[in-house]
């Protein structure tokens, strides 16, 4: 049977897929037992927005820019540093590339054996 095996782990994707289908089937069978009707196109299926008319279309969604808010806010020190480094000047990017390449080479040479 198709599987991935390393010295420390293993995974049989076909078995997992079959088990997934059975598990979803169980969940679906439970779900099916519930009431399925509701009053379509009435006030009932309006979204809750504290009694106000809800924003429509894209205004109701989180913008891509804000998806990671909270994360960026909490780690702002790191992100501000990264923003400063990404200044759009190609000379700086090439400088970083050469600097890191030199650093990696030094590590390899010090480590020995690789060259």
């Amino acid at each position, binding site marked *: 049977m198709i599987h991935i095996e390393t010295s*420390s782990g*293993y995974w049989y994707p076909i078995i997992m897929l079959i088990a997934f289908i059975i598990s979803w089937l169980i*969940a679906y069978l439970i779900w099916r037992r519930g009431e399925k*009707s509701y009053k379509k196109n009435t006030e009932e299926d309006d979204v809750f927005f504290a009694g106000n008319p809800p924003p429509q279309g894209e205004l*109701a969604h989180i913008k891509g820019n804000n998806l990671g808010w909270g994360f960026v806010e*909490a*780690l702002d020190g790191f992100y501000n540093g990264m923003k400063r480094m990404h200044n759009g000047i190609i000379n700086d990017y090439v400088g970083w590339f050469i600097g890191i390449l030199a650093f990696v080479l030094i590590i390899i040479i010090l480590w020995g054996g690789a060259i």
Partner: protein
Amino acid sequence: MSWENYMPYIYAIFAPFALALFGIIYGLVLKGFDRKLAAHMQWRVGPPLRQPFYDVLKLFEKENIVPKNAVPWIFNSAPIISMGALILALLYLPIGPFNPVLGNYGDLIVLLYILALPGLAMMLGGFSSSSPYSAVGAQREFIMILSYEFPLAIIIFTFAWKYSILYPNLKAFSLLTFVEHPLWQNVGILGFIGLLILLITMLVVTTGEVGRMPFDIADAGTEISGGALLEYTGKNLGLFYLADAVKIVVMGTLIITFFFPYNLSSLLLHYFSLPHYAWLTIDFLFYLLKLFIISFVVVTVMRVAFPRFRVDQVVKFYWGYATLASLIALSLIVLDTVGGV
């Protein structure tokens, strides 16, 4: 071919049903205890222990409303994906004295990915509902997943690294290795302290994974009115409720597998002589007791003792304190191993 030849197939088909039934029933029992004990801690009487069962039955009788501008197939399939993933997770976990049904077909890395699915399903459901509150809740769920997965990954890799040193011939990521060789008796004093820190970190990660206070930012009732689940009613909400119950069982079992895989039978076997099925029953009851205690600590005590964090505080907590704690624990275990070799 006798009927005994068919037993493995019958077992493979019925095991998911049996495990789903167990997860749902015991998860709801734990929810009942949680509500009762939390109420007592706050000087309230609280609902009866069977209240979660009534809640589910009532939800399944209610109308299943799909908001006008929602994407119905994603909205309706999110609770099914969530519940299915948790039933699948149960198949990879050892339940008390019983080895995992799929223990030989997937390791801890597979389980780690499966455990990310319920959160992702809730996120998809929230985004697909067309409600601004739900969208905010879904965005917060996304932040939660990013936050707690990192310390959890460090905990898992610490265990696997230690097992790879102790037992080079065994699969270090296999849950069977975890169950058969508990780490506590294989470490020195530094390693013991490291394991204690990992245990505390794991308990805190579990509280976030099950979305309870102080990490319930994704459904924060008083801020965003239930967040990703706000527009869910009827059987959809009922299934999410059941999935939440099963998630406590899954995460509790994971903690037991990592830190407390001991059975009473191995301790008492020399003093008492009982038939095999009696030991199995005793070990299973012992497992239920361990699950109850873990649920009490990570759900009830935490949500009664702490107020809700802000979104950025949750990230700082998990990426700062929890990650730092797990890295210190990893260092202690490495030092213990290097010193002991």
